[in-house]
């Protein structure tokens, strides 16, 4: 734990990441050991390994980090998290960086935000996710080409009865929406 009185000396980026992540105070303890970067199934595809990202956070390189693909390559496998010798909640920090990148309009290079948006839009509307709708809408708008490639597998899925064509809706959609709206309103507060 960093004593609060010392936190003042940290980079602004570090402070923001700490504030936005439950348990995020630990990030100052990164040893730069590289367990995370070595473990990540997508580590090889990342612009910067998670370890490097933590060094950059400490060095206040906000722009470079938020524009990087690192967090969008994260598939939330939590390998890094359970291996980090300093018990830093790395995966959760990846989520924090995703949110920051979206909020600050830096998430240009990846399709992941679009997928996420499509997904949550459906849930907001129906209360359940709807694979067929999500896939078609997301692919149509983002990857029309892969729509064709997917076609075959999609068709077989359909043939096997594994793709429903109509969404299920929960009974109390109104209630859910009230909760979501309130949460959205509250999250704007700070």
């Amino acid at each position, binding site marked *: 734990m960093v004593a609060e009185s010392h936190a003042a000396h940290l980079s602004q980026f570090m402070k923001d990441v700490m504030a936005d992540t439950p348990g995020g105070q630990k990030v100052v303890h990164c040893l730069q050991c*590289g367990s995370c970067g*070595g*473990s990540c199934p997508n580590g090889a595809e990342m612009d910067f390994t998670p370890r490097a990202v933590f060094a950059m956070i400490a060095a206040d390189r906000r722009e470079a980090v938020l524009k990087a693909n690192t967090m969008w390559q994260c598939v939330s496998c939590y390998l890094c998290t359970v291996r980090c010798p300093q018990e830093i909640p790395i995966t959760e920090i990846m989520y924090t960086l995703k949110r920051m990148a979206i909020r600050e309009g830096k998430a240009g290079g990846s399709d992941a935000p679009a997928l996420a948006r499509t997904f949550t839009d459906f849930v907001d509307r129906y209360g359940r996710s709807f694979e067929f709708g999500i896939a078609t809408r997301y692919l149509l708008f983002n990857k029309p080409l892969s729509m064709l490639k997917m076609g075959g597998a999609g068709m077989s899925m359909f043939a096997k009865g594994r793709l429903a064509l109509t969404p299920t809706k929960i009974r109390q959609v109104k209630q859910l929406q009230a909760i979501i709206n309130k949460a959205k309103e509250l999250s704007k507060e700070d």
Partner: protein
Amino acid sequence: MAEKIGVYVCHCGSNIAGKVDVEEIAQWAGENLDDVAVSRDYKFMCSSLGQQMIEDDIKKEKLTRVVVGACSPHLHEKTFRRACSNAGMNPYLMDLTNIREHCSWVHKDRSLATEKARALISAAVQRVKHQEPLEPMYVDVNPATLVIGGGIAGLQATLELADAGYHVYLVERLPSIGGHMAQFDKTFPTLDCSACILTPKMSEAGQHENVTLLTYAELEEVSGSVGSFKVKIRQKSRCVDYDACTGCGICVEKCPRKVLDTEFEAGMGNRKAIYMPFPQAVPRVPVIDQDSCIWFERQKCRACEKLCPTDAIKFDQEDELIDIEVGNIIIATGWKPFDSKKIPQYGYGRLANVYTSMEFERLCNAAGPTNGKIVMRDGKTVPKSIAIVHCVGSRDDRHNPYCSGICCMAALKFGHLVLEKTDAEVYSFYIDMRTNQKNYEEFYQRLLGEGMRFVRGKVSEVTDAARMPTEQGKLIVQCEDTLIGRQQRYPVDMVILMGALEPQEDARELGLKCGISCSMEGWYTERHPKLDPVATMTDGVFVAGTCQGPKDIPASVAQGAAAAARVAGMITKGKVMIEPIVASINEQACSGCKICNNMCPYNAIEFIEETETSRVITALCKGCGTCVAACPAGVITGAHFNNKQIFAEIEGALWDALQPAAESSSQAETVPASAS
């Protein structure tokens, strides 16, 4: 009889006077606090003139109590106690209250600091009224010493004391002394042969006229306190008559039962059911491992008994309890290796060619199971590439947060041995290279020159899941090379895990028996980490070597010698003083409820069956006061910290808190009288 109290408030130059209005407080105390006969302020109370002033007042003014407002009692309590006893007053009738560290040095506002100092002085004045004269106790020091643990640290301590002419009982739980060092091939950084430097010390201890060697023995119980401990040792049954055995080794040779040796050989080799752990073992008296001996298993065999030329085999030998008396105890129980199976992603126990560091020590030891040939588990293939993984279970909050200190150097040592003996490539995967003792960095430089390869990155996993044809049949070490910022995979033949040094399993338990404590991790706590590294909070109990924390052989030896010097000092002095701050039970009033019986970690409270009451054994009590606070009948008193004293102190500290309420209670006095 009202007391006559002298109050002395120190300026400490401007250290106190700069923030606290000392003169005003001294005057206030003299005028407002009951029983204060003299109240003065002075530039430096601890100076000889200051002390003289107190002494003079005690004599002239016939003071019965003294309060000093100055610095921390940890600095000058002894000073002022001495001044009081010089003047013929019992030193325990003085109270030193801290208005420097706790007040002038830490508060910004002069008036608030003064108010607090006033409250502290008031508290001390109230307290001191209730203080009682106490007499310190002295005990003789028994010149014999108990050393627990026969590793290098314990051996060093033993020999220092024995050479100085004092008797030492050396208790070792394994069949031979020697500790971990006996398992090594070479020792860093000089690469001298471990056996060559250790064996002479072992045999010296074995033959020394002043040393009683108790191997295959464990500490059962300790009672008593500094100067005169009574110790019970359990001598486990060897099934071999210690005196009759000549150490010829025929029994070992002929014993038909082979078992895996998980102790000395770290699981890399075998031993017999009757065995001496290694050829240079001291004493040269074998033991029968009753769990694997055929006779104990199914009443067959007895080959050893039949062949023993001196009839030394005694199957019915039993454990023996040995009582000894010593004046001091040195604990040197060393460390145990980290269980690498706790990190499954490194594959130890699952992937054959992943080794622990102790296994590798045996593998490259000329006297080891392969005669020092570095080969893989199949017993023949020489590895072409070896990865050494640092910080396995060290510097990892999930296992041990500390750095084990020696494994970087041991890894370099391994690197050197591999390069010397094979053509293999050696990789070290490190986070930081820790080589900060004399000639250690030079050793690192040497290995850089010898072609050892260094990758900065903690290994993420060791796997046999090949992704590419080049990886087939290899162990793949995956990590981030943090210096280039890329994930990398290194296919190798053999992996060595540099496991952490961990405290012994029973460290806490043994500590409890001897009345000393462990850190969170389980290392013994020294009295002061810098200035008193081998003494402990329990007088007469010392620690040496790795049981106090990870360290290398030179440091272990230095501590062994230091502990011996401390003990020798005690023996030379002949007597020790014990603070009279102890608990006592009013046995008349004790109901025998036994609440207090569980309170004392020093077992200082005994229950007397006949009277069904509890009693404090004064010599064992350390005066913590925990039992005092626990007794539901309120019949335990803690000398120098009794309830009356503390209640009075609280009252004094809050002298200004109840002012308004006091007004309202005086109002309550004016209730109407009853009708008549």
